């Protein structure tokens, strides 16, 4: 069947809830309303208000009570309405969700997923357009996953829900309705921690995830058409733990890499990607790993968003500099 990312996520949630009675959903407006983006549409009607919980307006308690439920053995899938509001529960994530396993030597652990829409593309107000993946990627004990389309979204959400560790699951708002994609009838999973080479090429490695994957792919098309340069495009899928092996293998072949993300550039995920490639493929590197990212500015307003978020032209330009280096 052909589904957009919202429908694909909704399908994965329904399938996992049918599979496992311990899977429950909690968040603001996830029930009757089906979520701000309708990702949980219809689930409360199907599974009841005990399993799809319309919580009061308090992120720290959404995560904090979910931690408690997970310690008891449930598998909460929490929705934070926008990633910009997850700092309200950051202490519950860092202090507890990520640590109960280590703190109790696995007597307890938090099998839970924290879903959040992130990134730009919806003409939204402040705190509704930012990309905060870096903050989670730096926390030991967490996994940070970002699907790039309907099929990877459905498979990775299933994997995340079945994963014994807490998973931060970022959904690119720009992708929710961007495209419909064929997804198999049968539920499927994807290994968390594994990046995917979505296009092979020998001249340069383009690394992206989430909404930026499309940008990287289109840049690869332009570079092939206009420069005759063959880019290898890698979809990280999991930001942390980072699949350094796949990155290094690719750059050992291409000798050149550009990493693209929506998060601000400095101290961002691109830095880890660049540093890891340098450590693993230094002798193959023919040019510095370039980073194409949003500028180091806070919210710019959607009227200026396009000037800030990486686009195809910027990726192509960075790739050309790298190829010409």
């Amino acid at each position: 069947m052909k589904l957009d990312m919202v429908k694909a996520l909704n399908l994965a949630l329904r399938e996992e809830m049918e599979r496992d009675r311990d899977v429950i959903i909690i968040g603001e407006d996830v029930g009757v309303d089906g979520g701000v983006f309708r990702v949980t549409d219809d689930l409360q009607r199907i599974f009841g208000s005990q399993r799809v919980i319309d919580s009061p307006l308090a992120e720290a308690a959404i995560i904090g009570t979910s931690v408690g439920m997970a310690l008891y053995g449930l598998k909460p899938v929490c929705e934070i309405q926008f990633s910009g509001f997850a700092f309200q529960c950051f202490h519950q994530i860092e202090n507890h969700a990520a640590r109960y396993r280590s703190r109790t030597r696995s007597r307890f652990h938090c099998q839970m997923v924290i879903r959040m829409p992130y990134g730009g593309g919806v003409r939204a107000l402040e705190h509704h357009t930012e990309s905060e993946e870096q903050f989670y990627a730096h926390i030991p004990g967490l996994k940070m996953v970002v699907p790039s389309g309907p099929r990877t979204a459905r498979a990775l959400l299933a994997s995340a829900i079945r994963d014994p560790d807490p998973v931060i699951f970022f959904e690119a708002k720009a992708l929710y309705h961007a495209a419909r994609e064929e997804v198999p009838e049968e539920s499927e999973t994807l290994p968390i921690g594994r990046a995917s080479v979505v296009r092979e090429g020998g001249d340069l490695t383009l690394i992206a995830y989430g909404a930026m994957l499309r940008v990287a792919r289109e840049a690869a098309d332009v570079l092939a058409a206009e420069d005759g340069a063959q880019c290898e495009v890698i979809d990280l899928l999991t930001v942390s733990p980072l699949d350094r092996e796949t990155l290094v293998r690719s750059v050992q072949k291409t000798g050149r890499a550009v990493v693209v993300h929506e998060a601000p550039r400095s101290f961002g995920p691109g830095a880890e990607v660049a540093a890891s490639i340098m450590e693993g493929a230094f002798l193959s590197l023919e040019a510095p790993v370039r980073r194409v990212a949003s500028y180091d500015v806070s919210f710019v307003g959607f009227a200026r968003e396009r000037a800030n978020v990486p686009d195809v032209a910027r990726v192509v330009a960075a790739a050309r500099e790298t190829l010409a280096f």
Partner: protein
Amino acid sequence: MPRTPIEPRFTVEYLSILDSDGNLDASLEPDIPPETLKALWRAMVLGRRLDERMLRLQRQGRIGTFAPIKGQEASQLGSVATLRPGDWMVPSFRETAAMVWRGWPIEKLLLFFAGFLEGGAPAPDQHDLPICIPVATQLPHAVGLAYAAQYRGDDAVVMAFFGDGATSEGDFHEAMNFAGVWHVPVVFVCQNNQWAISVPLKKQTHSRTLAQKALAYGIPGIQVDGNDLLAVYAASREAVDRARGGGGPTLIECVTYRLAMHTTADDPTRYRSEEEVREWERKDPLTRFRLYLEKKGLLEEGLEQRVDEEIAEAVRRFEALALADPLAMFDHVYGEPPVHLQEQRADLAARLEAASGGAAAPVGEPPSATPMRGQRVPRR
């Protein structure tokens, strides 16, 4: 030694002066100068009409998502009208009428909702904070302002707005508690409009009223008919005067209703009944206040038209504003731009140069605008 109730008992009062049929409890009628009454009516009408106009602008894609105020005019205006210009207003994101009362130019509000940071800057002499999106996070700011005013020996009072859902956030609790301990001049105005997007009050908290939450902080709390401008005004007047007089903070719960959608991205038919809405339309704050002014002979001819014209002019001024320079995003990140921002600014400048037509190209709304729910993808 036995089991004994703690004395004195805790009480919270309810205040209503002008009921939905326009019946007045003269014994409680606040004494508001006729000119102020007329200004308040004008502001209510403007709030209502501006709301409708903004809805059309949003549907046309000329502005983005915003939060309509329809039904909450009395809560906002009855309270904010008791402030002096030198006092501080701390809004959330649904105080259009109160902001206009405080002097925000309409075109600036439109600019804000059109995605321009320039729309969020208060005037140099304006003692108001900008719109605050993260629920309840503005409340500690209000307490800090009040502390600073007290510290400086200024007699300013701070009034903070928030909704029923906001009372569930930790920041609400921490702000109320600090205000109680510090005994600072702040008035917390909760617009209890019964809904937090799709979540009804009974799923938000198990307490009977929101006003009683004041008891947890040892400060006065009062519940008022939020669609009764006179009651809101009287309660606010009392709270503002007490605050100014060194009497500390107050929590005012305005029982009102959001007659429109949560924001333009929301479809309320998914979570509430037409009956409920019609029920509350009968309690419309404008209807009863209009009757009240009518009896006082204070209604002006052609007010609606004048208000509409004022709005139309503001919209024209808004439309006339050229798209601001994208490079402005690098201004005001720090007091002095650090090296890396100067470099990034130069990078964007070069790209704008390159893109023939300079600024035009990379500006404007993002390529693939995903509608939130029913929202249409707007095009400028």
